């Protein structure tokens, strides 16, 4: 009996300590994350504008407006289209290609070579988005390098591929910049995952007569699943939240409509046009979209984890 009581109180004490350790962060998130998003939620139900002195409660009108009206030519539906296209056009190639590159890197003979490539791939991520955008704006200029290189590769000359001017190419350009920036980061994540697989597994497979391709599909890939899911979710969420790339492009003269991602629409509607109620409603909608996509990804990947 005395032993039991002692154990209970230790556990209780431990629990309290555990909670105590999380308190500083909780306080921080309460003030700087929970409160603001709650504030945004409340604002989304009002007609709040930046300069007006008063605002009134209007229920779901902001939401209805966003799904039915134009918002000055930059409708929410257009933003959703732009965001979805950007997200899927970027994160899917990014995940697939970075996995592919990680596998290739694992084939190299010397670890120093692997390290060199990882560093080289990662370098763009080291630059700030503003710097990256300013470089690429010059590269994508009609007279710039990208046009020149593309012309060489396709054996044409003097053709402007309209990287920043055509609707479609502009979206493609933002994807290229984002991809360029983050590919190295995801390669490293996959290398971490691949390195965590003990070599004994591969040895066992080779002993069992498996060839490389078979090993990859049936052993490596399933073992890598948790990493892939994790990386996918991270990449997708990051793409959904994209802002700087599109913002910098528009600031430098590109058209806004084709790349008017939701975050940018929120910014312009709220800070530029002063329609705070409406911008808050858009933020809540984005938040919900992100929750849904994350939940979907979890569901899709919910098969038994491979144990080894």
């Amino acid at each position, binding site marked *: 009996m005395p032993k039991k009581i002692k154990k209970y109180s230790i556990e209780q004490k*431990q*629990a309290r*300590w*555990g*909670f*105590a*350790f*999380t308190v500083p*962060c909780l306080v921080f*998130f309460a*003030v*700087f*994350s929970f409160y*603001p*998003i709650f504030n945004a939620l409340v604002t989304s139900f009002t007609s709040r504008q930046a300069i007006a002195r008063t605002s009134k409660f209007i229920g779901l009108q902001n939401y209805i407006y966003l799904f039915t009206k134009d918002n000055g030519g930059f409708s929410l539906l257009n933003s959703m289209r732009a965001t979805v296209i950007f997200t899927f056009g970027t994160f899917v190639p990014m995940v697939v290609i970075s996995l592919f*590159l990680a596998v*290739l890197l694992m*084939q*190299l*003979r010397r*670890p120093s070579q692997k*390290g060199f*490539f990882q560093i080289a*791939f990662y*370098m763009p991520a*080291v*630059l*700030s*988005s*503003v*710097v*990256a955008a*300013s*470089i*690429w704006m*010059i590269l994508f*200029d009609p007279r*710039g*390098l990208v046009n020149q290189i593309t012309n060489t590769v396709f054996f044409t000359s003097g053709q402007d591929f309209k990287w920043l001017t055509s609707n479609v190419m502009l979206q493609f350009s933002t994807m290229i910049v984002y991809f*360029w920036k983050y*590919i*190295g980061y995801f390669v*490293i994540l996959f290398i971490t995952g691949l*390195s965590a697989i003990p*070599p004994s597994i*591969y040895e066992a497979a080779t002993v069992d007569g498996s060839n*490389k391709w078979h090993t990859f599909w049936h052993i490596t890939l399933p073992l890598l699943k948790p990493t892939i899911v994790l990386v996918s979710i991270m990449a997708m*969420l990051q793409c959904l939240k994209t802002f700087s790339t599109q913002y910098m492009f528009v*600031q*430098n003269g590109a058209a806004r409509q084709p790349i008017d991602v939701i*975050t*940018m629409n*929120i*910014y312009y509607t709220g800070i530029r046009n002063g329609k705070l109620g409406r911008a*808050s409603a858009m*933020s*809540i909608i*984005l*938040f919900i979209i*992100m929750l849904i996509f994350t939940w979907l990804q979890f569901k899709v990947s919910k098969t038994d984890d491979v144990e080894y």
Partner: protein
Amino acid sequence: MNTNKYVGRIGIGEVIAWIVLILVLLFTITPIIFMFVASFMDAKQILAMPFKWIPSRSYFTTENRTFFTNFYHAIVGNNNNNIFIRNIINSLIVAITCSATTVLLASLCGYGLAKFNFKSRNFVFMSIMATMMIPFEAIMIPLYMVASNLHMMNTYQGLIVPFLVSAFGVFQMRQYLLTFPTEYLDAARVDGYGEFKIFHHIVLPNCTPVIATLGILSFRNQWDNLLWPLLVSQSETMKTIPLYITKFSEEKQTDEGAMMACALIASIPMFILFGALSKYFIGGAEVYESRKG
């Protein structure tokens, strides 16, 4: 750790692997080399068709420019007020502070979530993870008002405090600490060490890889922060590097050379940091190795 070691013959697979890797390498490196090279050129050369990678000597003498004219313009700024240096210092202060606080607070929180059992543990963890889904633009204005009411406008506190810790940091620390052997902790407790001492003397020193990675990533995120300083830094002396570059590009829009010089200078601290600590970026082997035994 290589999983497939070839000995001797180079197979066709390997050749293709190298070709692909080199192509991707060119893709990632070229814009950076471009920035470096262009910072020594003037606008005419940068947008010349075809682009010449080596700045021609002739125009240096004819147009009264030196090797470093662009850098001079970049630093001196449009109003000759040399504010760029101050902006760089601001960025450094903010990034270093946020990096330090993030590591500290995230490790505290991650430790609590990973190594202790309390009822609300999962709820707390999920709530913090949920904040990762809040886009900054959504809370920008309420945050502005909070900062304004706390009299943090146009101050270092205003730039730092909203970014004291990140949910991602908490996640990383928790994941890492989940695999920390609990036996050590229990042994220390039996020996009579207080919880805080355990954290300080046993847990933290053994977390160096993840602390370094987290620290660097936090530094980088703050270095890159554009929107928040845009709202908070109203006077020139409080602005950070991204603001300086945007302003510079708006005004000197046609002086691409100075723009690239500006961009290069702004990237130097990151390159140094990255160069010195690159092994904490390169994933896999080292982290795995150090955890064995």
